[in-house]
């Protein structure tokens, strides 16, 4: 009950607190999606797929004595996997940046409303 009628000091304090919290918010932990980091990750992903395919193919051929059938097939599939991983990652970043744009838009709209 007593919560509704706050003293002017309390209101002033709440307002200052809100403002400080708003100000502190954009200091999120460093965005891991900068261009160079994305390029670096995608480079590794692309090569890693091919590498794993090569590795799997080599050992399957060794065990079943089928060289070079699985080596060739899995090498190609490994490359496809690398491409798929890069595409999936690109779609994730695309979505993340669209979401961020939407949220930024919302926040801006809210700020405008509060001003009025």
């Amino acid at each position: 009950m007593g919560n509704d009628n706050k003293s002017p000091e309390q209101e002033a304090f709440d307002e200052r607190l809100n403002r400080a919290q708003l100000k502190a918010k954009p200091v999120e932990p460093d965005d891991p999606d900068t261009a160079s980091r994305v390029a670096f990750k995608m480079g590794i992903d692309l090569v890693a797929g091919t590498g794993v395919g090569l590795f799997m193919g080599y050992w399957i051929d060794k065990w079943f004595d089928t060289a070079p059938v699985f080596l060739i097939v899995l090498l190609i599939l490994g490359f496809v996997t690398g491409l798929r991983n890069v595409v999936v990652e690109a779609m994730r970043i695309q979505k993340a940046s669209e979401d961020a744009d939407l949220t930024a838009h919302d926040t801006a709209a809210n700020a405008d409303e509060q001003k009025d």
Partner: protein
Amino acid sequence: MAHSPIEQFEIKPLAHFEIAGVDVSFTNSSLWMVIVVGLLTVFLIGGTRKNAVIPGRWQVMIELMYSFIAGMVRDNVGKEGKQYFPFIFTLFVFVLGLNLAGLLPYAFTVTSHIAVNFAMAAFIFIGVTLVGFAKNGAGYLKLFAPAGVPWWLMPMIVIIELISYCTRPISLSVRLFANMLAGHIMMKVFAGFIISMAAAGVVGMVGAVVPFTVNVLLTGLEILVACLQAYVFTILTCIYLNDAMHPSH
């Protein structure tokens, strides 16, 4: 040049041990792991020894790290992820400690060796796979067969998903290793420029200010990279753990 920029990554055995013909010597790499674990233990136990309600500066540092990782686990794995918090937190402070300790002069950067990172990543990979099967049973295999794929494409998709799953430890370990290796080589190369330019007379000495400035900036960048790569390593572990616990997503 007298010093090669990759000399700093050389493993030097400090005490020779051999078990069943396998070289398990205590090396400079092992030494720095022990140092980092020791420092972290002192830092974490020392800071929480008082357990004050109103924390001092030391305790605040630890509480910030704690809530940072707790939030990361909550956001990426969910409430059930809490039971893995001790592992994730240990992983984060260990990698962060190794990365930062590597920046000290005369220190050895343990995480610049793919063998160390791959061992960690392989353990995470195996652990996460076991968690996946323990939580979901054979249902975990659905991760390799996404819904809505035509039946004639299925065999190929399963193989592709399987390869993709196996690239995780590689992607995880190579990223940390390559970042640390590249950063430290770059710093050493620019440090080498300072020496060789300064040796070339007065003009060279004035000119050596340029690589020196670059190196100061690089040091700042490397601190950022050290923290960021520890963060990336940990958050990816969380994401993999999440896949293991909720494979349908």
